[in-house]
């Protein structure tokens, strides 16, 4: 199975290093699970129009050590719900990386990404070639390859389907 390329606009750039993703929905909402409720808070302090302007396939861009702190799942849960297809950052905090990758949510490590894109640029992450193309600016940049295990996790669409695959369990039997 192959990982689908990510093709979309840069919907937002978090240029602050060590970015705490809980800020996306606000610390007081990190225990909220209801998507309609989360939508009201998503990006409220960064760009209140975000929830209306984001489109399926859009991507987020982050700086160094993206996901530092004590990341909770609701921020990226609402991002996925809004159609965000993945995150590209200069580098990641390991805990955040693991948590999101296990859900099959693509994370791309790309040193230099902050200088490579502007907000709303149209880009594509080409997994096979290991490059990101910027269609708006006509440029490309290479990114760090995934480990085989992470690639298998993304290709399967997350931890449980990945385990079903490697353990030879038919998803037909599952609920």
């Amino acid at each position, binding site marked *: 199975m192959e990982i689908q390329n990510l093709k979309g606009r840069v919907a937002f750039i978090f240029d602050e290093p*060590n970015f705490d993703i809980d800020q996306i929905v606000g610390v007081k909402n990190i225990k909220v699970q209801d998507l309609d409720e989360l939508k009201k808070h998503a990006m409220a302090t960064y760009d209140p129009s975000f929830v209306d302007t984001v489109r399926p396939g859009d991507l987020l861009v982050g700086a160094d*050590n993206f996901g*530092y702190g004590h990341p909770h799942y609701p921020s990226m849960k609402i991002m996925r719900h809004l159609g965000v297809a993945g995150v590209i950052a200069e580098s*990641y905090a*390991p805990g955040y990386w*693991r948590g999101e990758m296990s859900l099959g949510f693509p994370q791309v490590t790309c040193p230099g990404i902050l200088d490579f894109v502007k907000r709303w640029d149209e880009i594509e992450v080409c997994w096979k070639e290991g490059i990101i193309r910027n269609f708006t600016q006509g440029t490309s940049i290479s990114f760090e390859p995934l480990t085989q295990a992470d690639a298998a996790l993304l290709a399967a669409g997350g931890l*449980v389907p990945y*385990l079903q695959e490697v353990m030879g369990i038919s998803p037909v*039997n599952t609920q």
Partner: protein
Amino acid sequence: MGKTITEKILARASGLPDVSVGQEVLATPDFVLAYDWPGQTDVMFREMRDQLGIARIAEPERIGFFIDHMVPSVTPQEEETHIGTRKWCSENGVDLFEKRGIGHQVASEVGFAVPGAFAVHFDGHVSQLGAFGAFAVGLRRNVLEAMVRKQVPIKVPATVRIDLEGELPKGVMARDVFHHIVRLLGPSFCRFQVLELGGEGIENISTEGLQTITGLAMFTGALTAIINPSPERLAYALTRARKQIEPQYSDADAVYAQRHRISLDTLEPIVVAPPSPANTRLLSEHAGLEVHTGYLGSCASGRLEELRVAAQILKGRRVHQGFSLHIVPTSHEIMAAAAREGLIETLVEAGAFVSSSSCDFCYGRIATMAAGQRAVSTGTLNVRGRMGSIDSEIYLCNAATLAASALNGRITDPRPYL
């Protein structure tokens, strides 16, 4: 070319003669640990049964479960989570350690901290088993893979070595060493790598102190932290070990991604100001700041030497009027030892609220702060809302600073009291 302790442990766990940094291997964890937590372990139980078709787990002796959060329960739902965990452990023949203390500490007490072992948990603070020379990694949800398969994929990480020299001055404690490392090298210098501590100074820090330092490793970006075994730490760990494993040691010519030296003699007490574990400051910058509550406990604290220093400072004195001091020994074993030494008596007489062990003070489930309140804490984290209202604040500090601050209701340098 020499190998690090981490490379040697992963080579053994992968059944390979040796492994090198960057190599992807399938390694067999010796131990798979977890505490019960709604949305995490209950989901994992369901996924195993309904989606992976696992009626009964293989090799249950590898697994250890802890009930340390939501202790004691305050809602029927919390108790139901515990009931589910008890049932799953009983059905699967898995050892459950309930209300014995904070799991990462209890794990050491009941023999999961085996020198040379490879252990996994979903929670990254399990890195503190590294104080005993175990390679212990937090996998978050991927711990499910370790539960259901023999092996987990892991890319052999590079190691950053920090050598300590000298001795800590009075009033400066192990956690100040950790905060100093973050202050010096930043919150991401060890990203996806292993923090290995060594040097002659390491033997001047207690085992408990090394548990504190290694347990906080995630705030440097590290996957985990590890320390080569010493005779003293081996003696503790091997008498309790649940599995016979050959201890491992880094070779003198092991290759490190970075090497740093830190002199302990010149360190000062540090406070970590809100709202980030990266916001490390000298105590002197915040001395005098009014604080309303204090928490001495967590998996990163609450051990005997910290209870002793708090008792030393509080003995014969009273906590500041209106200040709430919560002291939570890390485990019942530690609490019993503290009671035998008379520390509990001293702390209670000084006005502390001493509780049986629980994780719940650390994340505001109990002793919850209101807006505008400010805490000194030996907990793990100081992000907004961690211990209650998002408009409350947490200053992390060592146990001596905490006790001295409790006397004055202000952040206070403990050194004049020692």
